[in-house]
C-alpha cells in the first residue's frame, strides 16, 4: 500500500519522463528550434468558454488590499506568439500549465505541455514533424504501425456516415439519438456541441487504434485535420474542396488525444472578433468573461506565417508506459500535491 506522502509514479516512470524530456530537447536542438521561457502568471488569459484558468491576486509588500486578477496560463501560446512577432524565429517550450476542473483518469489540473512553433510552415509541414518526433519517442516502447492522416470530415464519414460540415441539425440530432446519446444536450445548443459529443464518444476511441487484416490490434499515430471553421480557435480558416475549414489538427494515439495544432491565425481583427464571440458565449453560459489580452492582439498583427502545436507530456508518457491512469506518470498528482 502506497502512503499518501509517497510518489504515485514508479521510479521507472519518473526516469521515463526525464529521458523523454532530454530526447525532446535534443530533437529541437538538432533542428535549430530555440528553447524559450515565458511567464506562468499573467494579467490575461484565454477566453475559450471551455477552458477555465486558475485566478489569483498580486499583493504588493506591506499592502493588505488585494489588487488585480492574475491568471495561471493554460498554455504558453500568447507570450510565445509575442516572441515570434518580435522576431524569435522557430521556438519551443516545455512548461507546466493549469486548467480548472480538469481532473480524472486522463486529466490533472496541473500538467506539462510541450509547445512549439515553426516559422514559415503550415499545418501540413508541422503534422509531419509531429509524426516524426512522436515516432522517435514512442518506437522504443510500443509497437507502432504506420501513421494515419485523415480529415475531420473523413473520420465522421467513415464512422458515422455523414458529412459534419453540411449535415442539417435535425439529421445530426437523429444521429445523436441513434448513438444512444439522446437527452445529453438540449436541442437548442450549437451544432458543434453535438459534433463534440459524437466525436468524443464514437469517433475518438477508434483514432490511433488500427485493426490489422490478421485480427491484431495495433497502435498508431493519428493526425486528424481540417476541423469545422466554427471550431477554429486560433487557427486560420481556408477553403478545402469547396468547404471553409479551420487549418487545425489534433493528434491521437490509442483513442486518446495527445495534442492540438494550428496553422496560426495572424489576422488581429479576426482574432479579436473570435475572442469577443468567446466572451459572448461565456456570458450566455453564466461564467466570468475574460479581459482582452491587448498585448497578444497587437502581436498577432505582426505574427509571421507559422504553425504551432501543443503536446501533453503526461498523455505521451501514459502511451509509452501503457498506463491506465495519469496518476501513474505523475510523481505527486493533484490529490497528493
Amino acid at each position, binding site marked *: 500500500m502506497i502512503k499518501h506522502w509517497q510518489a504515485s509514479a514508479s521510479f521507472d516512470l519518473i526516469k521515463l519522463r526525464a529521458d523523454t524530456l532530454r530526447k525532446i530537447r535534443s530533437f529541437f536542438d538538432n533542428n535549430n528550434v530555440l528553447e524559450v521561457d515565458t511567464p506562468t502568471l499573467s494579467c490575461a488569459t484565454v477566453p*475559450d468558454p*471551455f*477552458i477555465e484558468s486558475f485566478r489569483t491576486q498580486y499583493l504588493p509588500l506591506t499592502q493588505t488590499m488585494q489588487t488585480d486578477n492574475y491568471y495561471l496560463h493554460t498554455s504558453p501560446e500568447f507570450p510565445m506568439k509575442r516572441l515570434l512577432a518580435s522576431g524569435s524565429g522557430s521556438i519551443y517550450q516545455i512548461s507546466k500549465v493549469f486548467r480548472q*476542473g*480538469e*481532473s*480524472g*483518469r*486522463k*486529466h490533472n489540473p496541473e500538467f506539462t505541455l510541450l509547445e512549439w512553433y515553426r516559422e514559415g510552415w503550415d499545418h501540413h509541414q508541422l503534422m509531419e514533424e509531429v509524426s516524426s518526433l512522436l515516432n522517435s519517442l514512442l518506437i522504443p516502447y510500443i509497437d507502432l504501425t504506420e501513421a494515419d492522416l485523415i480529415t475531420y470530415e473523413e473520420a465522421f464519414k467513415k464512422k458515422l456516415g455523414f458529412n459534419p460540415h453540411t449535415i442539417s441539425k435535425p439529421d445530426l440530432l437523429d444521429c445523436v439519438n441513434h448513438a444512444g*446519446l439522446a437527452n*445529453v*444536450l438540449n436541442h437548442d445548443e450549437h451544432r*458543434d*456541441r453535438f459534433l*463534440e*459529443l459524437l*466525436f*468524443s*464518444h464514437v469517433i*475518438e476511441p477508434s483514432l490511433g487504434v488500427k485493426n490489422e487484416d490478421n485480427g491484431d490490434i495495433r497502435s498508431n499515430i493519428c493526425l486528424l485535420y481540417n476541423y469545422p471553421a466554427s*471550431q477554429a*480557435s486560433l487557427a486560420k480558416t481556408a477553403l478545402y474542396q469547396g468547404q471553409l475549414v479551420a487549418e487545425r489538427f*489534433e493528434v491521437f494515439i490509442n483513442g486518446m*488525444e495527445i*495534442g*492540438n495544432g494550428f496553422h496560426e491565425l495572424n489576422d488581429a481583427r479576426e482574432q479579436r472578433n473570435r475572442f469577443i464571440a468567446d466572451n459572448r458565449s461565456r456570458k450566455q453560459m453564466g461564467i466570468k468573461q475574460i479581459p482582452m489580452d491587448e498585448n497578444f492582439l497587437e502581436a498577432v498583427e505582426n505574427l509571421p506565417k507559422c504553425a504551432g502545436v*501543443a503536446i*501533453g507530456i503526461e498523455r505521451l508518457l501514459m502511451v509509452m508506459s501503457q498506463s491506465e491512469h495519469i496518476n501513474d506518470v505523475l510523481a505527486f498528482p493533484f490529490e497528493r500535491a
Partner: protein
Amino acid sequence: MASYNTNEFRSGLKLMIDGDPCSILDNEVVKPGKGQAFNRVKIRNLKTGRVVERTYKSGESVEVADVMDTELQYLYNDGEQWHFMHPETFEQMAADKTAVGDANLWLKEQDMCTVTLWNGNPLAVMPPNFVVLTVTDTDPGLKGDTSGGGGKPATLETGAVVQVPLFIAIGEALKVDTRTGKYVSRAKD
C-alpha cells in the same frame, strides 16, 4: 430536492436515473483540449441489477437517490415476505421477493444481513459473505474418503444446493461462501 453536480460524481454515489435508484460504478471525465466536457458514467440500476452507461454534460445536476445500507438481523419468512429487525432499535422491516432475490438461498434465521433501503424500504438484501448451514439431503457419505477428490451435490436447510466433498453426511453443518455459492469447510464447532 437534493442533487449531485457531475463534478461530485464518484463510484458508489447513489442517483435517481429514469425514476430508478442507481449506483455509480465508474465515472470518466471526457474533456477534449478544446470543446464541451462530458461525464461518462457506468451505473448499476439497484432495482434490476442491470449495468448501463450514461453520459451527462459536465456541470449538470442529477437527483440524489435516498439509498442507504443497514445491517439488519434476519428473523423469519412468512411465506410471502422476509422479516428483518434492527439489532438496536428492534424496528422491524419486511422485504418482498424482488428485494430478496437470490439472497433467499442463504438467509438463515438470526444471521446479520446488509439490507439496502430506498426511501426507507428494503430494495436489496445481501447475505453475509459466509453462512453456516446444515445439510438436509445428500448421497450417503463415503467414510474414509478425505482426499477431496470427487464431489456430490448436497441440499442445505435453506434449499440451496452446493457441491460438497464425498465424506459429507446429512446433518453436518457446512461453511459456505455466499458470493460464489461454494462449499468452504465443515463448520468448526
